[in-house]
């Protein structure tokens, strides 16, 4: 569709029962898609959690998504990191590869090139830990597919704006 673009949106919300369900329910109920979603408490004293959602849509749809989220009662703040100036996005993946011989050596060599860490190894397998942009992780996973990829766990995107200003 015309002008459809991926946006990374960061929310500060009250860390209370049901808050994630409210956000997710809004997306499913109104037909918006979620490409990635992460959530964790970030401020224990004020009991706040941060949710990072990657979604896509035209400019009008993205505006609508932000306005809809903003009117949820436990939402304190909504920021679109994609249009709000330079920002950083990272994902972490744990990648299990089971292979022997040539393939095992090649997997290890590529992991090194991607700066993936080996966090577990047996004689037939490795678990790699890789941090980076979504595209970097996608690229590494693509390479591992031919080298014995058996299992994958990804965090989804977390993001933050560059510079001194807080959200």
């Amino acid at each position, binding site marked *: 569709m015309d002008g459809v673009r991926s946006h990374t949106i960061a929310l500060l919300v009250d860390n209370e029962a*049901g808050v994630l369900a409210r956000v997710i329910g809004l997306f499913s109920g109104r037909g918006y898609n979620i490409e990635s979603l992460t959530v964790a408490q970030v401020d224990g004293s004020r009991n706040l959690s941060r949710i990072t959602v990657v979604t896509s849509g035209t400019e*009008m749809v993205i505006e*609508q998504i932000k306005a809809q989220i*903003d009117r949820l009662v436990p939402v304190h703040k909504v920021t679109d990191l994609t249009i709000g100036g330079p920002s950083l996005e990272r994902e972490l993946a744990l990648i299990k590869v089971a292979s022997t011989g040539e393939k095992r050596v090649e997997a290890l060599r590529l992991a090194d090139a991607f700066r993936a860490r080996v966090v577990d190894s047996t004689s037939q397998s490795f678990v790699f830990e890789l941090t980076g942009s979504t595209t970097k992780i996608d690229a590494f996973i693509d390479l591992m597919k031919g080298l014995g990829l058996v299992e994958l766990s990804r965090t989804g995107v977390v993001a933050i704006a560059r510079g001194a200003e807080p959200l």
Partner: protein
Amino acid sequence: MAQLQMTGAEIVLKALADQGVDTIFGYPGGAVLPIYDALFKQNNIRHVLVRHEQGAAHAAEGYARSTGKPGVLLVTSGPGATNAVTGLTDALMDSIPIVCLTGQVATHLIGNDAFQEADTVGITRPCTKHNWLVKDINDLARVMHEAFYVCKAGRPGPVVVDLPKDIQLQTGPYVPPTQVQHKSYRPQIKGDLNKIREAVELIANAKRPIFYTGGGVINSGPAASQLLREFARLTGYPVTSTLMGLGAFPASDGQFLGMLGMHGTYEANNAMHDCDVMINIGARFDDRITGRVTAFSPGSKKIHVDIDPSSINKNIRVDIGIVGDVAHVLEDMIKVWKSKVYRPDKEALGEWWKQIETWRGRNCLRYRQTGDIIKPQYALQRLFELTKGPNTYITTEVGQHQMWAAQFYGFDEPNRWMTSGGLGTMGYGLPAAIGVQVAHPDALVIDVAGEASILMNIQEMSTAVQHRLPVKIFILNNEYMGMVRQWQELLHGGRYSESYMNSLPDFVKLAEAFGAVGLRVSDPTKVDDTIREMVDIKRPVIVDCLVDKNENCFPMVPSGAAHNEMLLGPEDQANVSEAGAALV
């Protein structure tokens, strides 16, 4: 300072009283018995026993719409809560502030599929503005006060407070409303002044302007309606209103073009289509209003005032979006207009009114009362003439009769018209009328009904009789789900699949069975007498008004059509596009 200690049930009632609640609508059950027990021991708050929880929700809505205060209902867990869901959704769609208190199984049983357990906060999350499950007695008073704040603040809506039975029985602290402030929820009330200035300049330079006003004007309070009248008078511009906004601007005023939208007037819809500046005050560009969005008022600059930021640019892109409360924004607009000494463009406005008068000249609501069958429009016109006044309140069910009521009953004041707009809930009108009558004991409250809709909550007749609420039910009985039949005629080759109302009850006997009064009229010459008789009876009355079974509601903008492609009567053939046929 020693805090006031009381039981959870007492905290609930104390919070209601401190929030100014005088009446609640409810139905008891196991999970709310402690609250019913506390109710029994006090006399601050009146309880109106309904006959179905959906009725309680609509009654609370009627109470809220006619008073501007939140309506309150109290229901039990499980089926009590699920029965209230239609009313909650209705209130969400029409932005009506209601507080729904639901009983819940004891906290240690939650999640165990206990008797009459339902995940009430889960079920009601998408149909409330916000909801709470109170799991700690120390939170109860705060949550009660927050619930009232949230349902009223910004764009109003329904809220649910789910109350486990053990919490109702525990003892805990009470805090008054003055000591509770919501930590983050602060909707914007004042509009951005720069945008307001920009908007007023655009308004002042308009050649073919129109005010398009909605339920937001009513929700903002009586001051908003006064300010709208003042601004309209200053400018001399035409005003149209959505279904939800009727009464905010007087129907009897020459500047009023009638309702717009799917069954709106020819002049209102054409003026919307051809205007050069559209001033949307508290309406939301709903699909019943816009018709085909790509053909909606193509040549106009659009200003949109709305308290809900998500309403702006949702369906229609606007040129100036102003987030704020209608009364505050109108007040600022008028100030700017006066301080800049703006004057409307007399000549252009004269031309525009001339054009509007030719549209008006089509007399789009005309009908002919001939022969010995009552035309529904005639019955409503007579009802209006014989009952109009500031102390008359009209509710409706959903269908053709609802649209005819909107077209033929003129409202000069806000808060006199309660109808289910966004959700279109058949069964709304009778319980809503009960809520209105409770709030206004001396008023004349009439539910304009269809014979199909009225059967959806007819059990509330018992409520009316028990509480001596002299509501009047005026059934336009066409023996059809008329609106369904109309669409089947227009879009499905006249195949009236399941829309004939077979085996109808005898409504006169039905009224009598409930201990109310039943009247029937089928002769056009007797309509006036029947209406007078209905008004004179100081008890609940059902009037079974037998009307023309085949009458359709015009004008009509068929689904997927543009405003200037209206059907004015049966002689106009509907030409519905394939895309339009898929719309509701």
